[in-house]
C-alpha cells in the first residue's frame, strides 16, 4: 500500500518540485485579481472562473482537537474556466500535525456547471467531484455525515492507512441581491467502497463594505474588503438523517482584495460538542488571466 508520508529522501524531490513549480509560475503572465469570487472557504456561490483564466488558490485550516496535537492542513487549488458555464478544479491536499508527521493526503477533481445561461433570483450550479484522499485529510472543505472532532484527533499513523475514493455531488443555489451574495449548498457524498450516502450543508452570505468604486487605485479603501459569514455542518447519512452526532460551525469571514491577489480570513466556531472549538482559516488566491491565449502566443502553436 502506498505510504504518503514525506520521508527525508523524498524531501529533496519535493523541494525541487516546488522550486520548479514556482519558477514556472513566475514565467507566466502577471497575476492579477478579479473580484468576482467571494471569500468563502466552504460555501460555493454561482460565480465561476472567467473562461480562459487560471486561478491559483491555497486554503489553510488550523485547529487543535481536544487531547490531540495542533494541526495545519493545506489545500492547493488550480481552478480553470473552461467555458462561461463550466469551471474545472484540481485540489492537492496535505497536512502537518504537531509531534506527528507531514502528509500528502490526496487529490480532488471537481467540475461545476451552470445549467441556466441567464441570471435569475436563484442561480443553480451542479457540482461533481471525485476525491482520492486518505483518512488523514484535515482540510474540512466540507462537513458531511457524522464527521466530528474525533476524526481529526486520530493519529496520522493510523488515518493515513485509510484510502478513500469518494464521489461528491453538490447543488449550489446562489443569489446576488443588492450587493449581497447569499448561497446555499446541499452536499451528498458517497464513499465508493460500499459506504452509505452522507449529507451536509453550507450556507454563506457576504457583501463588499462599499459598493461604489472610488475611482482611485487603492489598497485599503472599503470597496476592497468583503465581509460575511458562513455556516456549515453535517446532516448524517441515509440510515440516520440528523443534525446531532455530527459537527456544525459558524464562521465570520473577511476578504481583502490586493493588487496581486485576494487574502481571506475566517474563524470557525464549533456549535456543538462534536465540533472543534475553533478552526482558523487563511486563504490566498491569485489569477492568471487568459492563460490559454498566453500559451498559444508563447508556445509556438498557431
Amino acid at each position: 500500500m502506498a505510504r504518503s508520508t514525506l520521508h527525508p529522501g523524498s524531501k529533496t524531490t519535493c523541494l525541487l518540485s516546488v522550486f520548479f513549480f514556482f519558477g514556472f509560475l513566475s514565467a507566466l503572465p502577471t497575476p492579477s485579481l478579479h473580484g468576482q469570487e467571494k471569500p468563502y472557504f466552504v460555501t460555493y456561490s454561482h460565480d465561476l472562473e472567467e473562461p480562459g483564466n487560471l486561478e491559483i488558490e491555497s486554503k489553510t485550516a488550523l485547529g487543535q482537537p481536544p487531547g490531540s496535537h495542533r494541526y495545519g492542513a493545506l489545500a492547493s487549488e488550480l481552478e480553470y474556466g473552461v467555458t462561461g458555464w463550466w469551471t474545472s478544479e484540481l485540489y492537492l491536499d496535505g497536512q502537518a500535525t504537531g509531534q506527528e508527521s507531514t502528509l500528502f493526503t490526496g487529490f480532488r477533481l471537481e467540475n461545476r456547471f451552470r445549467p441556466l445561461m441567464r441570471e435569475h433570483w436563484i442561480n443553480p450550479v451542479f457540482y461533481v467531484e471525485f476525491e482520492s484522499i486518505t483518512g488523514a485529510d484535515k482540510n474540512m472543505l466540507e462537513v458531511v455525515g457524522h464527521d466530528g472532532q474525533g476524526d481529526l484527533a486520530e493519529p496520522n499513523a493510523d488515518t493515513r492507512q485509510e484510502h478513500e475514493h469518494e464521489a461528491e455531488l453538490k447543488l449550489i443555489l446562489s443569489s446576488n441581491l443588492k450587493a449581497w451574495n447569499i448561497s446555499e449548498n446541499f452536499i451528498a457524498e458517497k464513499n465508493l467502497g460500499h459506504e452509505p450516502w452522507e449529507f451536509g450543508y453550507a450556507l454563506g452570505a457576504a457583501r463588499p463594505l462599499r459598493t461604489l468604486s472610488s475611482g482611485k487605485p487603492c489598497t485599503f479603501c472599503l470597496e476592497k474588503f468583503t465581509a460575511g459569514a458562513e455556516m456549515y455542518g453535517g446532516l448524517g447519512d441515509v440510515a440516520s438523517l440528523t443534525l446531532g452526532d455530527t459537527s456544525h460551525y459558524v464562521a465570520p469571514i473577511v476578504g481583502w482584495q490586493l493588487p496581486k491577489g485576494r487574502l481571506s480570513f475566517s474563524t470557525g466556531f464549533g456549535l456543538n460538542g462534536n465540533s472543534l472549538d475553533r478552526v482558523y482559516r487563511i486563504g490566498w488566491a491569485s489569477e492568471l488571466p487568459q492563460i490559454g491565449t498566453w500559451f498559444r502566443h508563447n508556445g509556438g502553436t498557431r
Partner: protein
Amino acid sequence: MIPRNFGLLCLAIASTLLFCAAASFRWDRVPAKEHARTNPLASRPESVPAGALIYKEHCEQCHKTDAMGDGNKKPALRTDRIKSATDGDLEWFLRQGDLSHGMPSWSSLPQAQRWQLVAYLRSIQQ
C-alpha cells in the same frame, strides 16, 4: 436558365442577412423595463474614472486596453452596436453576461459599479 446553385446562393444570402439582423437586434432581448432605465450615476464626475478602473480590473484582459477586442472571439466595445444600446441595455447585459459565448455574468459586481462601468463605456464611444 436558372443556375443549379441559385437556390443554394439564395439560401446562403438569406442566412447571412438573418444572422446580421439577429446580431444587430440583440438588444431586443432586453426586457422593456430594463431597456428604459437610465444611468443614475451618469452625472457624477467620478463615474468615468471609477468605471475606467473597473474596466482595467475586469474587462481589459479580454477586450484589451483600447476596448477594440482581440479581433477574434473577444469583441470590440467601441462599435455602433454599443452606441445604439441604452444605459439599461448595457447594465442588463453586464449583469446577465453571455455564458454560452464566453462572456461572464458580472452580477457579482455591485450594481453601482456596473453603472460606473456603463458610464465609462459611454465615454469611450466618441
